[in-house]
Each structure stands twice: as C-alpha cells, then as structure tokens.
C-alpha cells in the first residue's frame, strides 16, 4: 500500500469564537482527483492553508508524503498549490510572476516557458497580470502550481470564474494530471463542477467531515430506491400502488414518485391491474442532489 500523498489527521482550529475545523481527517491518494466539497465557509480553504503550512492548526496534523510541509526542502517540487488566483501584483507580467517563483526553487527560466505552453498562456504571459480575466488568472495559477512538476497538487476553487469551455478543459486537465499518477486535491463549493472529474470525494460542512467516499457510493447512498412512474391513469395507479404498500406522490399530471417498491414489483402491480404506463425508471440522484442531501444539516447559513 502506498503512502497517501496527503494525510490530514484530526485538524482542529478555532478563529476566535468560531470553530473553523472540528476534527477533520482524510487522505488524498496518488493517481486520483479528490474533490474537496462543502458550502462556502465550511473550512475548505482553512484546511488547505494548514496543509500548506500557512496556518497552524490548534490540534492535528497534515502531512505531505509523510512530511510536514515546512520540512519540504523545495516545496514547489513536492506540492503545487493554487490558493487564490487573484493573488498577483498587477504590474508584473504572468511570466515574471512565474519567473520569481522558479528562481525561489532554483528552477531554470526554461521551465517557466514550458508551463506557459502547457497552460496555453501564450503571448498573454508577457502582459501585466492586472489585465488578466479571472479564467486567465486561474490558468496562470495552475501554471505556477505545476512549475516544480510536483506529484501533489492542491487547488482551491480552480473552476471559479471559468467559462463553460474553460470548465470542460479544466476537468480534462485535472483528469490527465491524475492519470500521470499525481495526487490532485480540488476544492469546490459546487458539486456539479466535480461530476465526472473526481474519483474520490471529501465532503465537509461546518468544519466537520460529512463524507469521505467515492462518487458512485455517494450517489447510490442518496438515491434511496425512488422510482418514477409515468402513466396516463394517474389516480388509479396511485390507489393500487398505495394498496400494494408503497408511498406515492404525484409530481406532475402524469408522473408519480414511488418509494417502498422496486421497479419490478411496480410493473407487476400496474400490469396486474391493467393500467397503462409509459415509463418506470429507478431514479438516479445527481451528484449535486446527493451533496445537497448530505450537507443540508451542515450548511451554516441556510436560507430561511
């Protein structure tokens, strides 16, 4: 068994009266994209800052390949991080931003041009960063994270401000990084961004771990055996299904949601009573719904 790329163990941190992290533990494995999800203010960024040695936890530890971040001799070659794409000096060009980062790690300027090409920054890299769109800044941030060609990446909300095309590109890019064997930790407050991207999900709410699971398990867990039935004989269908022991709800004039009976049994009941039906489908929850379900309790500032 390989050592986890990132091991977070029992992080606790208090900001004044607010408990920002309340015993967060999880691991990030090589070759996987690990989604780190939770509503705004759930503690994602704080956890990432602790991983990167920027904030000190009151309790617990965060290790990168078994070492504390501050003990890494050349941090950028172990962990690439994107915390805040807007953290740029507006007068400095993107290329020069990468250049000082490269110098700090004893990397050559050639490496800067490599990541500029890799992220498709092109000629924009020589313009002052103050004029970049948010999407451009995200790309520059990813370029900075890749500068040391690290086996571990920590990216805080990299989809923020990206257009749909950019989001699609970013998903593919993250998958390709994981496919190379890198461990990728990506945070987002929108689960949908991580659909089809993350292999593993760490869900956090109010500083507590809500779920640490795979995407498939998460969806299965929430779908909870609901079946959608489309039928022109809505009233009769409701009565026979209820009679068979199911809980039935009408969601549209020709649609029912049935729980308590599986699809096979529903088809049998409807056919047995001679009722027409156009569709009987086990309903698959979207990742987003699964996430909403999970974090309902944990959402800190719930809409009233």
């Amino acid at each position, binding site marked *: *068994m*390989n050592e986890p*790329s990132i091991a977070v163990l029992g992080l606790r941190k208090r900001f004044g009266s607010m408990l920002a992290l309340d015993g967060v533990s999880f691991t990030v*494995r*090589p*070759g*996987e994209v690990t989604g780190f999800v939770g509503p705004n203010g759930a503690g994602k960024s704080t956890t990432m*800052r602790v991983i*990167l*040695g*920027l*904030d*000190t936890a009151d309790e617990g530890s965060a290790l990168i*390949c078994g070492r504390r*971040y*501050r003990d*890494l*001799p*050349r*941090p*950028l*070659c*172990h962990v690439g*991080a994107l*915390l*805040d794409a*807007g*953290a*740029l*000096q*507006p*007068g*400095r*060009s993107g290329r*020069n931003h990468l*250049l*000082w*980062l490269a*110098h*700090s*790690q*004893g*990397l*050559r300027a050639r*490496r800067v041009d490599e990541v500029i090409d890799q992220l498709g920054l092109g000629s924009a890299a020589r313009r002052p960063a103050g004029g970049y769109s948010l999407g451009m800044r995200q790309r520059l941030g990813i370029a*900075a994270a890749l500068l*040391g*060609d*690290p*086996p571990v990446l920590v990216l805080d909300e990299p989809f923020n401000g990206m257009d749909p095309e950019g989001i699609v590109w970013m998903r593919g890019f993250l998958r390709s990084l*994981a496919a*190379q*064997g*890198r*461990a990728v930790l990506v945070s987002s407050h929108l689960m949908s961004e991580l659909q089809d991207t993350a292999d593993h999900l760490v869900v956090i709410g109010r500083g507590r771990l809500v779920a640490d699971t795979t995407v498939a398990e998460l969806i299965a867990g929430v779908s909870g055996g609901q079946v959608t039935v489309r039928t022109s004989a809505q009233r009769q269908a409701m009565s026979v299904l209820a009679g068979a022991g199911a809980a039935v709800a009408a969601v549209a004039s020709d649609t029912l949601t049935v729980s308590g009976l599986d699809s096979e049994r529903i088809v049998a009941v409807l056919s047995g009573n001679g009722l027409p039906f156009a569709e009987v489908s086990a309903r698959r929850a979207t990742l987003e719904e699964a996430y909403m379900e999970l974090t309902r309790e944990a959402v800190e500032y719930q809409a009233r």
Partner: protein
Amino acid sequence: MTRPYQSTVPAGRAGFAQLLHAEWTKFRTDRGWMIGLAAVAVATVLMSLLSAAGQQRQCQGGCPSTPVGPAGEPVTDAFYFVHQPLAGSGGITVRVTSMTGLIPSVADVVGRPLASVGRDGEPLRDAQPALQPWAKAGIIVAASTELGSPYAAVMVTGGHGVRMQYDYTHDTAGAAGPISPASPRWLRLTRAGDTLTGSESADGVDWREIDTVRLAGLPATVEAGLFVTSPEFAEVNRRLPFVTFSSDRPTQATGVFQDVVLQGAWPGAGWSGDDLGVPNEGYPAIGGGFHQAGAVLTVSGSGDIAPAVGVDGVGRTIDDSLAGVFAGLIVAIVLGALFITAEYRRGLIRTTLAVSPRRGRVLAAKAIVVGSATFVAGLAGAALSVVLGEQVLRANHNFIYPSSALAELGVIVGTAGLLAVAAVAALAVGAMLRHGAGAITAVFVAIVLPFYLVLPALPDDVGRWLMRVTPAAGFSIQQVLPEYPQVNGPYTPASGYYPLPAWAGFAVLCAYGAIALGLAVLLLRRRDA
C-alpha cells in the same frame, strides 16, 4: 494502486541565495518598485537643488569673503588689537587687573554702522553691564594683522578662567576663577623661533606654564601686543508655541592692563590700536578702542577670535546641499513598507510563504533587496545633490565650509545608509502592521517627524535628547561641523550640530531597525499567513 508521479525537474536547491534571487526578481519586474526606487534619487536631488536655489546670499557691493584660518576652516577674527612689531624672539608680560563687559541696547545699534558704535570709548547709551563668559583679554602674537592669520594668545576670560589658544581652534585651560583688582592675574607669552609659550601667575613671582605650541612658518617679525574681544550674545525669545525668535547682539568687553614688560627687539614706535575685522561678515561686533595712562592700558573690544560657528550667518555646509534627503527618505519609507504590505493586500504573501516556508529568511531576503536597492539609489541621489547643490550654493554667493573629500564621501555614504535603514525599518513595521498607510505613518513619525517638525519648536535640551534616543539620531550622519567648547554657538540639530557622532547616531537608527526586524520575524513566524 497508481504509481505515484515522479517529478521530472532537474535537481536544484531552494536556499537563501535562491530566495534572494526570487525577491530581487520580484522587485525588478514590477515597474512600481523601479519607479519608486528612481523616485528616491530624483526626490532627493530635486528638493536639494530647490533648497539650494533658495539660499541666496545678497550683499551690497559684492559679498565679502569669509576669513579662513590656517587649516582652511572659516573663522571669526574680530578684536581690538593694541600692537607693535616684534622682531625675532621675545615676549610680553602684563598684569590684568580688571575685566568688564557691556551689552549695547537696541537703540545703540540700530541705524548706525556697527564699527562706529562704542568706538574709542564712546559711551553706550542704556548699555546693560554683562560680561560674556567667553569675552577675552590678554596677550597675542600674530603673524600679521591680516584676518585669519596664524596666532597664539594667553588671556583671561569672562567665565572660563585663564586660557591659552592658538590658530582659532585650539584651546588649553589655565587656572580657573574670575579676576578683579584685588585678585589680578599676570600673563606672559614668549616667542622663540616657531615656539610660543604661555604662562600665568597669581602674584607675578610663581609662574606656571599653560602650554607650549608651535606655529610653523611664523615670519621673523610678527605683530604682538594686547587684545580684547567679546563674542555675540544670543537672545532667545519664545513667544509662540512653535516659533522661536533669536537675535544675536554684539557685546563689548574692557580689560585693564598694567605694567607691560617687553622682552626682545621691538623696532616700532610704540603701541597702535586697530579694530580688526569689524564689521565682520555675518558676525555682530561693534567698535573698540584703547587709552594709556602711565603704566595703565585700558582696551575695549568686540567680536571673537575663534572658529566660525553657526551656519546661518557665515556659510553653508554639505548639509545645505542635502536638504532634499527628507523627500528621498519619505519615498524610501513608502517603498520599504509597500514592498511587503502590497503582498498582504493582494494575498501574494501566501504564495511567498508557501514557496519559502522559512519565514525569517523571507523577511531577511526582502530586507536585503529593498535595503541594497535603496542604498544604491540613495548614493546616486546624495552624490548628485552634493555636487550640483554646491554649485548652486556657490552661484548664489554662499560661502561653503571646506570639507575633505573623505568627509563628503562619508556624508554621501551615510545618507545612502540612512535611506536604506529607513526602508528596511519600514519593511519591518509593514510586516508587523500588514497595512501600508499605517506602516508608512509609523515610520515617518519615528524618523522624520522629530527632526523636521518637532525639533525646531522644542527647547534645545529636549531636541538634543530626542536626537540621541529616537531613530532621528540617524541624521547625525550629516554632521560635518565640529563643536567647539570655546565658542558659545547655536549647537542645535537645526544648525547642523548633532549631539551624537555620525557613527553613533547611525548605530542608534540601526538598532531601531534591527529591533523592528526582529519583532517582525517573531510575528511573521507566529501568525497565520
């Protein structure tokens, strides 16, 4: 399980040298920093030249030259001289039985040529009797009656006992205590070749040598005799909380000499009296005179024989060509503070600290980069200010105090150091406060305010104390004028005199900078980024 990714970048180091390189790259690649750096030099030069251009000396019929002593320093050379030539070796012995002094009233002085006031015993209306502590009456041997010529003298003074002085800057104490007819003092000054010996006695029998000095190149025949002089009286009025008026008023002293005994060859035809150096450029002195009654010679005189002190009246120093340093200093403080607070404002500090988790080193690298860059800019600004400023001052007929190239270099390098340390201190305070405007204000108040704003309004003692203990002590590096205990001068920082030597004042500033940097490192390590 996927095999972990292996980084393909070539091996390298992320040590302090790389960190320094990174911070320099940051500094170099942001146009804002480079403009700020240039502004340090440009602001210094422009403000210096502006100030120099404003220092116009205007005199009717051309400005008289300031007398310069044998060592090239500007001197005050105004006294009443009762003299005759002395050929070769010889000496004078005399008994001084009385010394009194007067401060003429304003009515005595206003509207009349100073040289005619008090001339030849003319009575001064409403004069206030007061003997200046550094009023002098005694024997003098001078190379000639030219102003600034080499001399040696023994004298009684108003408040500092018997002294032997020579060539303006040298002063040796004899017996202390005042003189009176009941307690006179015998003085003797003898010449043998280039050697002059001054002696004193309380009874004319027991003699004590005060000092023996060499005046190289003294001519065979010198002018020797009795002299009396009395220095200016500085009247200070504090009328408004922040404004101080001071006026320098001339004074006059009168000495009574008895039983003059001459040794050696005196080829002249007896005593003649001359008011030397009255009126003296920039130095308030009135006329004098003498009369002889039997063995009693009464001599009155005004002025001083001493190094010129008090920049305003007499000349300009390198200080005056560096008046723009305060402008450069403000820019340097802004530059130093923003070099870190801008990173806080943009959130870039997190990138910086993630890249280099050893935070103390980060601050050290930043300090070295911003300090060295400011030092170089300060060096350029100060050097240009001195070179161009002196030209402007000269063009405005100002007398420039001569100073050695080494001393000028010291002031230029010291000024650059002052700017660099101020920038580093601002960086440290910026790291502590994480807020640009706050840091700039704090450092400005600590360094610049005591010197430029508060100091002139405070009593001298408080001002001098501030210049010792506050970071403003760093301004001592601009000190080029020595203080002379034998001259009661305006030794205030505003006139270019600092209570600490240049290196000590700079050390005080550096200590503050080091403390600030230490605290900043402590806080940076402890706090979340």
